[in-house]
């Protein structure tokens, strides 16, 4: 018997998440002997990630892999990763949090709220860096007096303000036009997104790889859909993900690195601040962290655990 499932993501075919998902679904089909037939709808054909959590809960789709930065509306603890303590943190250290007890607590809450099963460890999307059109960027605080595009979330707005900028919320769809018209002079985004949208043609000249935020995607399957599968297929889904997540993470990390190269190739000045510089900025930003935990309605105990597991100096 074949089991047909629908999966929704909102990135385009060439995006690293889409590529990973296609690869994984292909693998599942092969290893289940064709029993597991998961149809992928990418490019937001079915749902935006912003709405896909609810679609899972309501049973309108079976699988999804939304980014954790769009899930703050479902559970405020997802906004944890917008806190200053994560600024500039090296990638390996992030895993101590997201693969550890903090990630498990967030998974548990999402599973309860969305009636889903989190399939396994989160897939990396990469760092949001800072990019600007006409203002050269050497450190994160070079945003003073600039209008800076925020991708949403109170944590992002606070960050922009803390760095001296003026936050303006612009959906990704309007970024290219806003840039070329000068609606804002800088933005937070992954370098990969900047490169694939060829935003140098919209005026991006400077990139500061300052690791403002680290973003990850959370793979999930609706609990009713999962329960309908026979145990061996359930096992296959969970285990094949766990077995390959290392490779998938390497793929997206690589895409991220290449993106910086592509930007440089097209005349964008790419600057990577030293770890010491990043630490200094983080120390400054940390002053607002406690206040922010309150405004974002993040569980203080969970934030404390994250801080402990991050092992900040």
């Amino acid at each position, binding site marked *: 018997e074949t089991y047909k499932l629908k999966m929704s993501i909102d990135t385009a075919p060439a995006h690293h998440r889409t590529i990973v998902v296609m690869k994984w679904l292909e693998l599942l089909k092969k290893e289940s002997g064709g029993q597991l037939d998961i149809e992928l709808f990418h*490019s937001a054909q079915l749902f935006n990630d912003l709405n896909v959590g609810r679609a899972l809960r309501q049973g309108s789709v079976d699988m999804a892999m939304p980014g954790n930065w769009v899930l703050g509306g479902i559970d405020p603890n997802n906004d944890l990763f917008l806190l200053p303590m994560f600024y500039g943190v090296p990638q390996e250290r992030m895993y101590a949090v997201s693969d550890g007890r903090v990630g498990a607590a967030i998974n548990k809450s999402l599973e309860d709220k969305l009636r889903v099963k989190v399939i396994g460890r989160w897939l990396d999307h990469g760092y949001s860096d800072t990019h600007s059109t006409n203002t050269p960027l050497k450190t994160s605080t070079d945003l003073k007096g600039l209008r800076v595009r925020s991708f949403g979330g109170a944590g992002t707005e606070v960050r922009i303000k803390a760095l001296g900028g003026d936050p303006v919320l612009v959906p990704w769809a309007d970024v290219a036009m806003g840039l070329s018209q000068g609606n804002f002079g800088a933005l937070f985004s992954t370098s990969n997104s900047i490169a694939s949208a060829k935003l140098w043609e919209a005026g991006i000249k400077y990139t500061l790889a300052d690791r403002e935020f680290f973003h990850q995607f959370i793979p999930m399957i609706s609990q009713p859909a999962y329960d309908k599968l026979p145990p061996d297929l359930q096992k296959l889904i969970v285990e094949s993900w766990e077995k390959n997540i290392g490779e998938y993470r390497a793929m997206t990390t690589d895409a991220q690195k290449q993106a910086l190269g592509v930007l440089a190739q097209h005349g964008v000045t790419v600057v990577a601040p030293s770890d010491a510089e990043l630490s200094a900025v983080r120390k400054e930003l940390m002053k607002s962290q406690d206040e922010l935990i309150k405004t974002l309605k993040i569980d203080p105990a969970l934030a404390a655990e994250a801080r402990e597991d991050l092992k900040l100096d």
Partner: protein
Amino acid sequence: MAVQVFGLVFFAMLAIGMPIYLVLGAVAFLMYALNGDPLVGVVQKMLDGLNSETLLAVPFFVMAASFMQKGGVAKAMIDLVSLWVGSVRGGLAIVAILACALFSAICGSSVATAMAMGAILVPAMAQRDYPMPFSLGVLAASGTLGILIPPSLAMILFALIAEESVPRLFLAGVVPGLLQAGIFLVYALYYAYRHKLPREPHRSREDAWQVTLHALPALLLPVIVGVGIYGGLVTVTEASVLAAVVALLISLLYYKGIGWREAPVEIGDSVRSAAVITVIIATALAFAHWLTASGVPVAIVRFIVEINLQPWQFLLIINILLVILGMFLEVVAIMLITLPILVPLLGPMGIDPVHFAVVMTINMELALLTAPVGLNLFVLSSVSKTPLSVVTKGVFPLEVLLFLLLMLVTFVPSLSLWLPNLVFSK
């Protein structure tokens, strides 16, 4: 099976004069049910679709148009323009096309363009006894320029899915957009000559001065919107808000066509007019969601892809397919359904995605004009209080012209590619 059910029910409902939004909404409920999808998804999809800043421009532009029309702003502007082109037969039709082209240069939506321009110009053309089908046709068709002349929401969506550069796509639309306006102008002149449309009355020099002075405050409106958008001060939706507020203020304070007490009533009525279109968009999105999930359009596209065509055959067949889809679906839905499959094929076929974006966009312009689901037809029918069939009739010759332009642009890629390659050098 589901698709046959759909076809039967859909056409039966349309034929007995059921409101379009109801046809789409009811079919959506029915097909979700047949498919075993949770019905709450229909309502959720409508709510998610409406929760969009872009869509917000529609009611605001309707407000602006309604203040302009009732408040005397539009009349002052039209007087001024007819002073310039008055000696030409069918001058107002020329004005309509040029106004749509100009408005398109600040507004990325064809629906908003048709709505704003239609609300002002249809009454003016009716006053000068232009044949109704002609006036409505010209405005519906010229309104589609909104997505061809940059900025363009359709191009932005294309850029997102195809990972192309938005400025490059925008530039690619410029020449075909001007060409479309030019073709429409020629048609309007020809029609005016054949049907002996009136010339505007000749004005004395004194009169001319007065008309010009009287129109100056009205000109503030395009200036503020234009400078706002191109000066990088505001987004398109913000510009729609500014346009509404400025139109309101000039109407209240200078032209005095409406009073303070009428303003809220006008705003309420504008929201109601906008709702005619937005409820159709909302139900159309829920409907398209079913069609996407059904996999039928995907299967058709895959089939076409697999029969191994030459690029020119491929482009021709895709155009035909898009025209057919365009009859039933609204722009965003068509692009979401077809682009993810088509875009990866362009490279191997040797078709430049920037060129294809323009081909796609002109197809989307046609989709806005073809019955049974053509938003620009609905807009004109709604702003003019005229049956849909009158608009459909009037738009037909222009649709044919637009189709010819589509063929031209499809098979002469340099029309689209010359400008972006000049600016960005390959």
